[in-house]
């Protein structure tokens, strides 16, 4: 039910939530300063069955890359679905988890300005909140494995409480600590900024004024020195512009030069001053609201945000209606233009088909508007038509989605293979490999080692690498005695199940995600698809091979594998087996090198 609304919400990602995982409870008028409300929130029973795993970021780092590096995940294995007790205006049944099976291991990222809930499985951001909108965050008192935060919705004029259940208390501690640390940092910055505003330090005219005072009474040489010193404090573009203008003047008199400089400065500063004073008023207005700092935004963004707060005030009610998945008590305005239309979605479909362009008023709740009564059979036919069309529409949408997914996959594949090679290999080699890797040769278990060696020496074309490596891994396995799985209790656990578990190495893995091929397009975006895929693979491996777990350097091997092979197309153990099997050499003992050596061989051959 929540799915269809994806597009309707502005910056809220919730509708994209799989099966309405995060329950939201509108909390009325929660104010940050209102301590009473904070405590009351903590007592809200964990009825809200949001769940996910938690995760924490012990360190709060700048948004760019760091956020990833320092978060950890956890997941919650079983979540209870208690009905809402604090029932506000909706029932929890709508938000029931549809799919108990899906992976609930989530990454909860606490950044410097953002809170994000990411599903490494779906590689989606499920929830994204600005810290400045968060009013309070608290751990459950009676149910300490829960935590929640209350967040102002920029589009809806209200607050929503999000409650999460974590696997255990320690995760909650971490999360709450991380968030409160983020609060402190944010408020510190905010205070600094406020101070700056009150003294109007950054007002350019003020700056100019002070410079005037400062150079008063100095001799020309000193004055010029001082002006240049102060100039260095200006933004670079301004400096450049001023210096360009200044260099065009040809006078040798220092006094004249100074006068000209001051004139330029006055021009430049007064022009920016108007803009800034306008922004200042925006700032102060915003400061009236709880927790809406101007932290971390440039002046331009301040205005934009202000706009987004003021202008679309009408729409937001819709979002909450959709999110809650219940009919609103009050008629909403905005996207839903017909206030009389309070019927079901069925009626909406019906109306759309029957009278696509005419006014929809009158259906349902106001029957007296109906001009003519239709025959029963006629209605039936219309209904059939409506249903058929709807079915067709859905089918087409599905097809489109498939098509789009295919295209995306193709581009992704292309992106993955975009890397520099030391030496390209000849075209003919392609055919050799095609022959080798082809089904027939695979069937006849063993391949001639000499021929293989010969082929390897000529190199493997990059588009074939994934396939060839898989082939080589198979060949390797044929030559080895059957693999002893005694030390690998999870050897037969499917990949998808491994992903649902937690690894003790998550922290180290997450730290290294941002440091693995950071310049490659596939891995460059923080907690993007590439990094999450890497995270999944490394996590699975650490569970599969408890002796090695995660070891720095493994991420590069896994990264290379991911560039050439896909995990998703072979959701079984296959893909993992490829990475896993070679690692799981019987001789693999303590050190990294031996653990991965067989695979190194494979890599070594072609390079």
């Amino acid at each position: 039910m929540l799915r269809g609304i994806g597009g309707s919400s502005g910056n809220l990602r919730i509708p994209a939530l799989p099966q309405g995982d995060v329950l939201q409870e509108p909390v009325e008028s929660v104010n940050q300063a209102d301590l009473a409300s904070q405590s009351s929130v903590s007592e809200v029973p964990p009825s809200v069955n949001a769940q996910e795993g938690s995760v924490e970021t012990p360190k709060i780092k700048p948004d760019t890359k760091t956020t990833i590096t320092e978060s950890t995940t956890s997941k919650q294995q079983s979540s209870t679905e208690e009905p809402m007790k604090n029932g506000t205006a909706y029932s929890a049944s709508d938000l029931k988890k549809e799919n108990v099976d899906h992976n609930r291991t989530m990454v909860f990222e606490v950044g410097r300005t953002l809170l994000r809930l990411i599903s490494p499985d779906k590689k989606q951001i499920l929830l994204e909140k600005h810290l400045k909108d968060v009013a309070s965050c608290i751990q459950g008192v009676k149910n300490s494995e829960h935590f929640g935060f209350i967040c102002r919705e920029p589009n809806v004029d209200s607050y929503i409480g999000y409650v999460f259940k974590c696997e255990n208390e320690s995760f909650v501690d971490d999360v709450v600590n991380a968030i409160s640390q983020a609060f402190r940092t944010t408020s510190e910055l905010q205070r600094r900024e406020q101070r700056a505003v009150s003294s109007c330090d950054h007002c350019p005219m003020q700056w100019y004024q002070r410079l005037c005072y400062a150079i008063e009474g100095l001799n020309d040489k000193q004055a010029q020195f001082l002006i240049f010193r102060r100039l260095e404090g200006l933004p670079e573009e301004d400096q450049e512009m001023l210096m360009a203008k200044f260099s065009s003047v040809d006078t040798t008199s220092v006094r004249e030069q100074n006068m000209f400089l001051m004139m330029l400065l006055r021009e430049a500063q007064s022009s920016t001053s108007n803009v800034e004073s306008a922004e200042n008023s925006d700032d102060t207005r915003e400061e009236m609201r709880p927790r809406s700092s101007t932290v971390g935004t440039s002046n331009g963004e301040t205005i934009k945000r202000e706009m987004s707060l003021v202008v679309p005030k009408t729409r937001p009610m819709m979002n909450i209606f959709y999110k809650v998945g219940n009919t609103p008590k009050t008629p909403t305005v905005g996207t839903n233009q017909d206030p009389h239309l309070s019927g079901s979605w069925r009626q909406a479909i019906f109306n759309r088909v029957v009278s696509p362009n005419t006014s929809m008023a009158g259906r349902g709740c106001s029957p007296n508007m109906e001009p003519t009564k239709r025959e029963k059979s006629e209605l039936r036919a219309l209904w059939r038509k409506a249903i058929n069309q709807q079915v067709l529409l859905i089918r087409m949408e599905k097809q489109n989605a498939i098509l789009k997914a295919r295209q995306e996959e193709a581009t992704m594949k292309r992106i993955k293979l975009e890397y520099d090679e030391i030496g390209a290999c000849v075209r003919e080699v392609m055919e050799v490999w095609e022959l080798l890797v082809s089904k027939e040769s695979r069937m006849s278990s063993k391949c001639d080692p000499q021929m293989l060696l010969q082929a390897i020496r000529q190199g493997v074309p990059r588009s074939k690498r994934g396939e060839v490596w898989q082939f080589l891994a198979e060949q390797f396995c044929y030559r080895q005695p059957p693999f002893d799985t005694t030390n690998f209790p999870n050897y037969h656990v499917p990949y998808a199940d491994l992903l649902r578990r937690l690894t003790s190495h998550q922290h180290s893995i997450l730290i290294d995600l941002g440091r693995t091929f950071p310049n490659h397009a596939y891995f460059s975006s923080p907690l993007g698809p590439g990094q999450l895929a890497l995270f999944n693979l490394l996590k699975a491996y650490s569970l599969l091979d408890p002796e090695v777990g995660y070891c720095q350097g493994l991420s590069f091997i896994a990264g290379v594998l991911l560039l050439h092979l896909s995990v998703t197309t072979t959701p079984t153990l296959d893909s993992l087996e490829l990475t896993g099997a070679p690692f799981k050499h019987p001789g693999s003992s303590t050190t990294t090198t031996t653990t991965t050596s067989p695979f190194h061989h494979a890599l070594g051959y072609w390079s």
Partner: protein
Amino acid sequence: MVEPIFDYQFRLILIGDSTVGKSSLLKYFTDGKFAELSDPTVGVDFFARLIEVKDGCRIKLQLWDTAGQERFRSITKSYYRNSVGALLVYDICNRASFEHIPLWMMEAKRHIEPHRPVFALVGCKLDLANSSNRREVSLEEARAFAEQNGLHHVETSAKSGVNVEDAFRLVTQEVYGRIQTGEYKVEDGWDGIKTGFQRPGGLDFNLIEAEPAKSTCC
């Protein structure tokens, strides 16, 4: 006489938790560059740089960068023995990394025995601590710890380059000082300190000859 490229070679090791900035510190010191993103060190890495101490003596620093991850402890251990100095690196914005310093120090002491290594406590990411107020380890606290244990302390930024040079210079100077007082000697089978003179079998002779010559010129 052929002028040697360097008079002494000291071997220093950098230790500390993962991601505190050991590699970045070294990169700045040897390269003068800062990389926004750096690869995790796998096992150990190696750098070298020539610097001059106060009296003009040229010292080649052989710098061993180690992996901070626990898993590599067994590998990095073997690099302690041949080091004369250790830089204990922590992240000013990461409290835990500072709290682990005593452990690192103990480990280094234990493995460098019987030699008494020169330690320096080096805080990294000063730029981050200052620019966004993320400091988690106060200067006073680190100072106090350093004094208590007789270490040098310095806060650095590999991004801006603040104090990076100082950190290494402090250790080098101290090692050099200890050579002059006779505490450290060039020993066979120990690579902590080596001389740059390539005269076979004449190590002691060189030492004696080189030093008076130095002291007269100052």
